């Protein structure tokens, strides 16, 4: 988020320059994005969007409205950001689907993808270009995500869409949690919208600009950025679809298409009512969505955690963060693999956070990756947080938390035993349950019993 904010500022100052640079970067990143390792969350989001178009799209369907609300409600925006994060996660979940999508999009989306990376910045730049002022910046960021690829006109459209999508997605995610449903809808929409996207997109872009301004004014905050990222990703996809062969692209990447489609659908609506009208409509739509999102009482905590972490560890240590509505609204942080230990350490020793109690640690094999889930609790503040990290499945290695919480000792052994996750720095990593002579790690999805009689 902070990155986005910075971007906004940058955008304000030298939007045009930023745009140019951003575009270049984005392109470069887009190239690189194929592999989703963007530094910034936005970038990741963008990637995720590219890769996980479906999810965003789904979310986007509803989220577009949410996006509007987001803009209005900054806090909501934060929530959205989380939602976006969720969306991302979902996307990741969809990664498989995404994977193909990106390929298609890459050419057209190359730009978008870049946007994704620098989306915030670039978007901001783009927005600035679009003359969207500071308010526009955020939107611009989103837009940039969109616009960078397609740049001005398409970008504008996409950007709007993207914003909406992101918002919608986030909102959808947060609200319904039934992201799946939304996704499906979004996918359907995408199918429809993808074609329509382009043309409407232009209008939408205009609208988007306006909206962007409005939203930006309201949203202007980091939330927007987060949402924007997600949106941007979606938009990027949309753009890709739009720029390249909107229809084909959309068709190619269902997910993306869906995401896009969702955005498109929104865009269409916007187009139909004209960009501003659309924006208004979005806002109207969004507001309910936002309200739906808001209820989580833990949102302020998540905001706080993120703020503290970003202020102290930098903006790019967290891959994602959201409220897990399924799990009693626990604030969930997704750390990057190389910042996981740092974040965990920070969570325990920072005075504001003080998560002194490790309630649970375990791993899960998600086939595409491994995930370590840590549930932390602070007896001082009486708050919970879930910390997750995704790690490579073929080489599952991660730092041990044992030096931070002594209670992580055996759970990590268990994760090592049953999933094969190696915890570096663990004082005594051994096969605690099955014994050292056991072959294989049973909780891996590809586990084959070594002894047929077992």
């Amino acid at each position, binding site marked *: 988020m902070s990155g986005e904010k910075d971007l906004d500022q940058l955008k304000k100052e030298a939007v045009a320059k930023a745009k140019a640079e951003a575009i270049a970067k984005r392109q470069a990143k887009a190239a690189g994005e194929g592999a989703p390792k963007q530094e910034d969350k936005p970038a990741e989001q963008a990637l995720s969007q590219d890769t996980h178009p479906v999810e965003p799209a789904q979310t986007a369907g509803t989220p577009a409205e949410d996006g509007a609300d987001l803009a209005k409600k900054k806090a909501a925006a934060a929530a959205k950001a989380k939602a976006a994060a969720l969306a991302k996660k979902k996307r990741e979940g969809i990664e498989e689907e995404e994977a193909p999508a990106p390929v298609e999009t890459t050419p057209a989306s190359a730009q978008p993808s870049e946007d994704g990376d620098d989306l915030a910045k670039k978007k901001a730049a783009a927005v600035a270009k679009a003359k969207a002022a500071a308010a526009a910046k955020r939107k611009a960021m989103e837009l940039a995500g969109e616009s960078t690829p397609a740049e001005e006109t398409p970008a504008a459209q996409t950007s709007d869409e993207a914003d909406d999508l992101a918002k919608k997605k986030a909102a959808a995610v947060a609200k319904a949690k039934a992201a799946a449903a939304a996704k499906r809808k979004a996918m359907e929409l995408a199918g429809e919208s993808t074609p329509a996207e382009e043309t409407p997109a232009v209008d939408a872009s205009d609208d988007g600009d306006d909206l962007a301004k409005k939203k930006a004014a309201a949203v202007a905050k980091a939330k927007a950025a987060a949402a924007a990222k997600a949106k941007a990703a979606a938009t990027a996809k949309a753009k890709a679809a739009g720029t390249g062969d909107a229809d084909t692209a959309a068709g190619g990447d269902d997910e993306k298409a869906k995401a896009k489609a969702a955005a498109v659908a929104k865009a269409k609506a916007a187009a139909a009512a004209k960009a501003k009208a659309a924006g208004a409509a979005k806002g109207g739509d969004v507001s309910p969505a936002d309200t739906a999102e808001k209820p989580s009482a833990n949102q302020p905590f998540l905001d706080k955690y993120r703020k503290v972490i970003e202020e102290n560890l930098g903006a790019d240590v967290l891959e994602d963060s959201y409220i*897990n509505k399924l799990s009693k609204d626990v604030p969930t942080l997704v750390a990057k693999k190389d910042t996981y230990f740092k974040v965990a350490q920070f969570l325990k020793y920072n005075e504001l956070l003080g998560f002194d109690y490790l309630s649970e640690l375990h791993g899960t094999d998600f086939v595409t990756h491994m995930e370590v889930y840590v549930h932390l609790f602070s007896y001082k503040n009486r708050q919970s947080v879930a910390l997750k990290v995704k790690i490579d499945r073929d080489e599952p290695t991660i730092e041990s938390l044992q030096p931070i919480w002594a209670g992580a000792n055996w759970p990590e052994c268990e994760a090592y035993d049953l999933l094969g996750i190696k915890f570096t720095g663990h004082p005594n990593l051994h096969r605690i349950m099955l014994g050292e002579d056991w072959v294989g790690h049973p909780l891996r999805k590809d586990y084959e019993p070594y002894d047929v009689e077992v």
Partner: protein
Amino acid sequence: MIRTEEMLLNVGPQHPSTHGVFRLVVKIDGEIITEATPVIGYLHRGTEKLAEDLQYTQIIPYTDRMDYLSAMTNNYVICHAVETMMGIQIPERADFLRVMAMELGRIASHLVAWGTYILDLGATSPFIYAFRDREMIINMLNELSGARLTFNYMRVGGVKWDAPEGWVDGVREFVPYLREQLKGYHNLVSGNEIFLDRVKGVGVYSKEEAINYSLSGPNLRSTGVKWDLRKDEPYSIYDRFDFNVITREEGDCLARYHVRLEEIEESLKILEQACEQFPAEGEIMAKVPKIIKAPKGEAFVRIESPRGEIGCYISSDGKKEPYRLKFRRPSFYNLQILPKLLVGENIANLIAILGAVDIVLGEVDG
């Protein structure tokens, strides 16, 4: 200078005081432990792996076999996790039945913990008294669920059976009976000098250590941390009852002993109030789909079992089986501090310290 050697002594898995198949390899110098290495896994049954191929309702019987001394809380935690994900509201009557079953289970579990602890310390009678009173609880739960140990009583959305006629009255009568017995327990053991000599100041850890080692339940509350999920993160209908969170400041075995024994009284309070408020009639099952499918996503819930916080993590891909199921088993976490506590103690204290942790091996090994 006389040369002495350290001896490696293997305590368990076939040992009377390890409460199951728990193994502890201790290095002793004379009778002083210089190093202790716990070895677990003898009872590992792969519940979490099995659950990946089972529907949610089918998993419930497996949870009975984890903490087999208070199977009701295990039943509850998985149902609670699924219900949380699906957003199911439980009928009031079912909630009452659940809470009463869980509190009875908690009392039964603490009675066993008390009895076996004193047995570990060499006195045989309290063990029998504890089992006599536990038997009454088992009978009540038997009437409720049809089983004495592995109840398989709760379902996603409610409970399987309604309380039989007069069951609540039975519980109501049981409360004053056990209160009276508890006085006897205190008279018999709590003031005994030999007993105090063996547990006072033994196995001490601080509040910070307890938190750092992820201890929970009586093991944590014995250090003065006032934390009980029933009170502080109320689930089910626990917020309707008036009860205290028992804490002690000392953090030794005696504190853990007292926390458990006094928690029985608090559970009796809850039971008493639950009997008063028990709805005369009502549904015992919420409307749930025939095949339960948790929505896509993940959830982690934790509740207060007699041994600490038991948690259930479910990652669902929207199918009728969980994609990944994980239990946070309190005994497993509570046991981690053991090697640290044992260094420098003698073998007699080993038993006292291990008994005070109150482990159930079915739970430790999952």
